[in-house]
């Protein structure tokens, strides 16, 4: 049975402080009912999702926004581990890339990410992209409770 529309629990995995701030503001401008959890590296991302270490008591989010270039465990590794774990593989992962060129690498590695967002040059476009996430969430990402 589908759960009622609730608050979108998002895990943002990003190490650039500026990008984190811009993402927080973009979510506010996009007017999405959400809770944004932020971690700064791949190790913390996995700890959060497994509710261990510093993140005891945390639950896997509804969706993960994953930067690829991360300290400790990088984004590709986080994605691989998520997709090979029964508990985490169904969580939609939106990969954030910095530049168009990186698509070549992504495609060739076949990461099984659910979608890619190229961090846009233009601020307005970034807000629109985040607004699009709301549509994605409402139409595709919701699963049965």
């Amino acid at each position, binding site marked *: 049975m589908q759960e009622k529309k609730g608050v979108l629990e998002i895990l943002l995995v990003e190490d*650039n402080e*500026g*990008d984190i*701030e*811009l993402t927080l*503001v973009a979510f506010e401008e996009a007017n999405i009912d959400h809770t944004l959890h932020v971690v700064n590296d791949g190790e913390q991302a996995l700890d959060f999702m497994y509710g261990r270490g510093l993140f005891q008591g945390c639950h896997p989010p509804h969706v993960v926004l994953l930067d690829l*270039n991360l300290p400790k465990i990088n984004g590709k590794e986080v994605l691989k581990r998520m997709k090979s774990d029964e508990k985490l593989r169904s969580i939609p992962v939106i990969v954030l890339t*910095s*530049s*168009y*060129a*990186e698509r070549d*690498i992504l495609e060739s590695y076949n990461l099984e990410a659910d979608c890619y967002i190229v*961090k846009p*040059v*233009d*601020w*307005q476009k*970034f807000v629109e992209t985040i607004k699009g996430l709301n549509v994605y969430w409402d139409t595709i990402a919701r699963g049965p409770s």
Partner: protein
Amino acid sequence: MINEREAQLLEELKHLRKDFKDFCYRVSHDLQGSLRNIGGFVSLIEGHPTISFDDKSKRYLAFVREGAEKAQTLITGLTEYSVLLTDNRKLSTISLEEPFNLAMEDIGPLLRQRRGFVQTKFCPVEIFGDTDLLRKAFAYILNNAILYTRVAPHIDVTFERKNATYLISISDNGIGIPHDYHEKVFEPFERLHPAEYFSGIGLGLAIVKRIISIHRGRIWVEDNEVGYGTTIRMVLPLRA
């Protein structure tokens, strides 16, 4: 048959190619991160509900933001060009139709926006090449033909078989390229017009030339017989 020294050099070359490519992506990624922050936060300041700016401040902020955006475009282009310098991908037999049709899709929105049209005289052929690279090359040339014009763009594309090669000609009705610059336009950063008239960072044709070189082809510019506009001609070999 290659000797041990040659094998060693080949191995070094392979590593160098990979290291260079990784370096380019790394530098590009880090620079893009900083530029994104500059552009993004300036936009936030510009649109801030409670801070007000006089006209001069607004102008200065716009310069900062546009500078950051331009730098981002430049870095993307540079990365693309740099990576092509060491590209050693294997070419294969492909239909020329595919990259051309894909390029036409890529430029479709801009063409419609500028109320232009493209007339094509096509004869299907298989050549030795790479679909992605040729798509990029065609898209760049078509894009230029659409942008560098003061009227609605009319573009003629013809494909002709000439012995063991294939000649592709793309003619436009645009502002033309002065004869003295027919070779220089293919060099990186050669821009012929002030930024306020026609935007462009001057890398597109350098990238196209690099792609045609990878295909062991040739590319050159000709003036149109009618007296205005430009024709870009490319010759590609049909087989390896």
